[in-house]
């Protein structure tokens, strides 16, 4: 090759080669990442169903050193946009871990605090909160969740931020008879309640506004207790 032409050529080809290299490197890298993610998936997945089932999730949790009732698992499910409670599909797994840039257990573990921060941002938390409810709907066409499950869910989702409200509300739910299940409207109402109403005085609560009736009754119950 003539130097000049080769230079040019090589210059060109170097460039293209570089970019190709770069691209292939990044795609190789991403491919490698995806491979590792897939590999990780297979570690926990059930061989016959090709899903990570509750058993797998338990193992995952212990590897992450997180309890399986910890809110961070729920957050992980949110990040994955997991549809079915207790199961992660391959696609959901990929989605979540890719977004977190985690392809090993350690990286995943390290990503959790960041994930928590992200979810707790007010703009995301409402969405997460609603997601948590939907995640618990197991049957098709199911619209409400039984009291027992709601209590547990509340504990997980709001226990750390609204301790007092959760405790009171759970106690109330257990002793009242009007409602055997909670629907999405009431669930979201509770979120607004915790965020907007001062507790435990509830001075700014007005039962004549559009609060769900269950919250009117809840407030009345507390006020009677305080009297």
């Amino acid at each position: 090759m003539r130097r000049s032409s080769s230079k040019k050529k090589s210059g060109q080809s170097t460039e293209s080669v570089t970019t190709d290299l770069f691209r292939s490197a990044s795609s190789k890298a991403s491919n490698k990442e995806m491979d590792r993610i897939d590999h990780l998936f297979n570690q926990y997945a059930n061989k016959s169903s090709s899903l990570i089932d509750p058993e797998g999730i338990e193992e995952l949790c212990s590897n992450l050193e997180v309890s399986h009732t910890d809110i961070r698992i729920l957050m992980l499910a949110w990040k994955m946009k997991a549809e079915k409670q207790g199961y992660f599909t391959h696609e959901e797994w990929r989605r979540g871990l890719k977004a977190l840039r985690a392809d090993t257990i350690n990286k995943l573990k390290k990503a959790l605090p960041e994930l928590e921060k992200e979810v707790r941002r007010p703009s995301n938390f409402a969405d997460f909160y609603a997601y948590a409810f939907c995640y618990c709907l197991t049957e098709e066409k199911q619209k409400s969740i039984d009291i027992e499950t709601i209590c547990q869910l509340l504990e997980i989702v709001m226990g750390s931020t609204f301790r007092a409200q959760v405790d009171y509300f759970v106690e109330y739910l257990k002793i009242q008879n009007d409602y055997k299940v909670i629907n999405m409207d009431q669930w979201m109402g509770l979120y607004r309640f915790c965020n907007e109403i001062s507790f435990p005085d509830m001075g700014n609560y007005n039962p004549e506004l559009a609060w769900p009736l269950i919250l009117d009754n809840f407030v009345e119950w507390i006020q009677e207790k305080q009297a």
Partner: protein
Amino acid sequence: MSNQKKRNFQIEAFKQRVVVDPKYADKTWKILEHAIHEIYNHNASGLSFEELYRNAYNMVLHKYGDKLYTGLVTTMTFHLKEICKSIEEAQGGAFLELLNRKWNDHNKALQMIRDILMYMDRTYVSTTKKTHVHELGLHLWRDNVVYSSKIQTRLLNTLLDLVHKERTGEVIDRVLMRNVIKMFMDLGESVYQDDFEKPFLEASAEFYKVESMEFIESCDCGEYLKKAEKPLVEEVERVVNYLDAKSEAKITSVVEREMIANHVQRLVHMENSGLVNMLLNDKYEDMGRMYSLFRRVANGLVTVRDVMTLHLREMGKQLVTDPEKSKDPVEFVQRLLDERDKYDRIINMAFNNDKTFQNALNSSFEYFVNLNTRSPEFISLFVDDKLRKGLKGVGEEDVDLILDKVMMLFRYLQEKDVFEKYYKQHLAKRLLSGKTVSDDAERNLIVKLKTECGYQFTSKLEGMFTDMKTSHDTLLGFYNSHPELSEGPTLVVQVLTTGSWPTQPTIQCNLPAEVSVLCEKFRSYYLGTHTGRRLSWQTNMGTADIKAVFGKGQKHELNVSTFQMCVLMLFNNSDRLSYKEIEQATEIPAPDLKRCLQSMACVKGKNVLRKEPMSKEIAEEDWFVVNDRFASKFYKVKIGTVVAQKETEPEKQETRQRVEEDRKPQIEAAIVRIMKSRRVLDHNNIIAEVTKQLQTRFLANPTEIKKRIESLIERDFLERDNTDRKLYRYLA
């Protein structure tokens, strides 16, 4: 001189200077001064008007106007001072008389003086802008006589004293009063107001204050009111007689304030004679007086109305929550109607039909009628009683009156849908037992209800009437097509459309053979002419007339319920039957069977059966025989009634529950209707709109409305807005 030019004859002004003797002015003034003296000394007859006038005229003409005017002032003042002294010296009653006389004299004098000095008045006075003679004369009188220290107070006190005397019953010289007071008025409006009227009003206020205190300590309300009326008339008369007309309003308001306004509260609340007592005892005259007096003062009528309202509410509340009174529903409602009539009459006769009082009456009634949750039921029972027998023999117009009164009570009800439920039940019983006094009256009331509440309310009721008529026609058709059935038991059937009539459970039982054959024939006839329908016999609602012959040959016709008929017919084939046998044969449910046996075996005068043992309760081991010794004065004996009765507690609960259940879909329908047209609406407005829409039927509970909204959200009829959680959106 012949050569003198002919001059035009010119008339020139008199050029000769008239020398006016300076003494001339003095002289002329002296003449006039003398004249004034004479006038004041009542010696005017000797004077020549013409001469005096000319003298005055000349003085003004020769520029001695000043002297004339000043002289006038001085002279007049001199005389007035003399007059003043003489008045001061007058004693007792003569004081006022003298004052009056001197005033008249002065006026006459003034008139003459003014006439004499008219030229000065018109020219000099106008140009120098001094006070005109007449006015000057008044001012001088005012300043020198009326305002003199020795006269001013004495005059006022004399006048006020006379007024006081007259008020306490003495007779005074009104003409003198009028003249003296007119003097004040002539001296100027401000003189009248400041020097007479104001102190007069103050003294009057004092007087009436004392009077009213005396009266109120010693009189009861009615007496006081009578006493309070008098001064109002008196004072007006006084004004007409000797005061300025403009004082009338002022003195009237003084009297109103002292005699009425200051004592309104005390009078209205006076124990044993105040408003409440008057209301209770229909004291129309006293109340009328109170009304016309109190309306003169601010808040007078408001006080009366408020006390009346409070009393009404209290009385109504007691009436309505007294358990004794609730024992008899018809009595209860009659009491309500009577009270309303009473207060209506009071407002009419004593309170001038005042609309605000009418409104207070209506709102009070609305308040307490709804305090008793059984009011709707009771009103329906009252109507039931009237339509059954109460209106017997009553003329059409009077019937209309009574029904209108009932409608008035109906309008007060907040839970009109509860009334509807009961009314339906009671109407059904009336129609089926044929116990209504007047078909016209029934229809009349339905029309009134329709006008009040709309077609929806009464459509089912009208359906019931239609069914009765149709059944009658059907029955005729049945017998026409089965002429062979004219021998044998007569069947009367009412075919009721489900949905129009109050829901009843269908109870089956075994009918006696003679009857069931007929029933079957009817059923096939009916279904032959009406396809696609299903008939079920309501054996718990029928009646039967049976002819019975007892042991000693006594014949009676018994009117019994269908169940009772089934039981009795069994004894055609057996002398003695056990409870169990009866139960088996008739298949009547136990509670109904026990009830019907009890009414035939345990009630005196209706005991067509004898029970072994003779206990009061029906037990399953009992045996029954026909009571051969049954006796009754009447040929026709009625056993077992289907009369509407006040519900028992559990029945009441059940009805209330059904009403509550019925309300839920109505609330939902209202919500959907409103949201469909508005598309988006906030919470408070939905509550308000729904309540308004349902007002004619019942008072909707905001909590219940909220529940229904949530239910509709769950069923995806509505949703909450994402950003503004107070808004709801309609989901098509």
